């Protein structure tokens, strides 16, 4: 019984990671769209990072695009002007995202509920207008153009080409998996479990001795780091930074992906990213008002299927194996 309650200790890399990696690796071979697979994986990283907050800490942040955009601009600017090693600019993108998240988090977390949400939204708008006005650095409305995508120097003398669509996808895929392994470990760490306690009942978490503001702020910073990293990849992917990388709509993209896929697990947001990106690619060709369809689907899920697609899969799977439906949420 107790073994059930705790589950087994998880290896850093296990079967799940191989399955996930394998399934994602199929994308470029299954999809007729050449650049879409890399874009999906980049958004999946953003959505998983967002879900550290919504799914695992219980914080609904509308500020994710600020971290994503900051990361994108940083990589873009450093590659254009200084020609730095992309690995370095990507890490710095993460650091800048984390810094933004720490500041915005610090100023928002003391507020609860709707006030917290509105503050993150307001800060995202602030970041947007900053990027919009600061034309000399960000390119403003036109975007930051001509971001180079140099070959990736792995060792001195060995450069990995990432120009081609498949090459770039593999590059993103590797970074995604590394980031995912780290995020999954964080979620399963003592720290991650305390975040769960905060999600479940912040008042009791505080009453048993956790300074919840500290934990929430760290969660925010971690989410900001990985979102910033995704932003850096996005700059490399687009070979430019469009202004909408930092727009509120990008924040809502991550939210929609997570809710659609299911916030109860780390895999839900990935499924959400895959489904939304593919759906928008197909629907946008069929009908100019395709966002409407996506909106209806989204509302349907929020109203009737709280566990999202992952919850649905989980429930059907346990019904299939044990004959009784189970809650979609992870422990």
């Amino acid at each position, binding site marked *: *019984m*107790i*073994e*059930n*309650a*705790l*589950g*087994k*200790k*998880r290896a850093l890399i296990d079967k799940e990671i191989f399955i996930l990696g394998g399934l994602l690796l199929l994308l470029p071979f299954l999809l007729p769209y050449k650049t879409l697979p890399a874009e999906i994986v980049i958004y999946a990283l953003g959505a998983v990072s967002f879900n550290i907050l919504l799914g695992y800490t219980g914080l609904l942040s509308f500020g994710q695009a600020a971290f994503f955009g900051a990361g994108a601009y940083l990589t873009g600017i450093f590659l254009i002007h200084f020609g730095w090693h992309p690995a370095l600019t990507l890490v710095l993108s993460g650091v800048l995202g984390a810094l933004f998240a720490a500041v915005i988090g610090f100023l928002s977390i003391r507020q609860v509920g709707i006030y917290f949400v509105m503050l993150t939204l307001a800060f995202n708008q602030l970041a947007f207008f900053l990027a919009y006005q600061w034309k000399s650095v960000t390119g403003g409305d036109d975007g930051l153009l001509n971001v180079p995508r140099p070959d990736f120097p792995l060792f001195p003398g060995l450069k990995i080409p990432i120009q081609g669509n498949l090459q770039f996808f593999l590059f993103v895929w590797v970074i995604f998996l590394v980031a995912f392994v*780290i995020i999954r*470990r*964080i979620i*399963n*760490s*003592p*720290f*991650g*479990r*305390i975040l*769960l*306690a905060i999600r*479940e*009942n912040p*008042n*009791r*978490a*505080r*009453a*048993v*001795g*956790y*300074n*919840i503001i500290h934990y929430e702020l*760290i969660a925010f910073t*971690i989410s900001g780091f990985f979102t910033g990293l995704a932003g850096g990849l996005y700059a490399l992917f687009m070979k430019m930074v469009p202004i909408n990388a930092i727009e509120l709509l990008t924040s809502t993209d991550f939210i929609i992906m997570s809710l659609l896929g299911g916030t109860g697990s780390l895999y839900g947001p990935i499924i959400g990213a895959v489904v939304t990106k593919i759906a928008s690619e197909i629907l946008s060709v069929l009908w100019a008002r395709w966002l409407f369809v996506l909106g209806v689907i989204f509302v349907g899920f929020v109203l009737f299927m709280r566990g999202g697609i992952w919850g649905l899969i989980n429930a059907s799977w346990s019904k299939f194996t044990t004959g009784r439906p189970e*809650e979609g*949420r992870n*422990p």
Partner: protein
Amino acid sequence: MILRTVNLTKQFGGLIAVDHVNIQVHEGTVHSIIGPNGAGKTTLFNILTGEIPPNDGEVYFQEKRITGLKPYQVAKIRIGRSFQQNSLFKNLSVFENIRLAAHVQHQGRFNFLSDFRSFHSPIDQAHKVLEEMEITSIAGKKVGELSHGAQRTLEVAIALAADPLLVLLDEPTSGMSPEEAIRMVRLIRKLAKQRTMIVIEHNMNLVWSISTVITVLHQGQVIATGSPSEIEKNPEVRKAYLGGAAV
């Protein structure tokens, strides 16, 4: 003396919920606080644990002033409490509820990169509490699957999880069926032998059987403090609280 208050006062608008309350709790005793609904018992608990600040007065724990500490700081100095309304980690297992509460007193709270299952001391501590509260058999169940009585038991178990020096229980038997209440009374009697506790309770059977000292609150004021037999005889208590009837 493990805990004492000096002229503790809390006002909500025109209502004085806690009115110059002085209580002294000695180590190794069970101190019950009784009084009719609205007497200020839970408000007193909320002040002691930092949930709400007092308007006036002081709280001392082991002769250190702790007035105005935040709830998490109060928990850290090893005062544990249970709530009148269940306050649990709903989607987690019984075991995880207790383990999380136990982890507060152990290393690794800010460890991001190790699996939580490699920290054995909170796990061992949780096992101990499960046994003490006799809920080992439901350790794997999620809170949502439990009966009210089992949830109440877990509520108390969480208060004990971090091995507190002082335990505050707010109506542990509230809402229980008679059978569940009998079980809870037995459990608390067992706990009372080894711990210093302050208990708010309406179940007089329990109060009279576990208390070393009883304090009676009425309209925010202490109207009597003493041993159970002294309280039983106190005419003012009878008038205010027991309606003049014999206990």
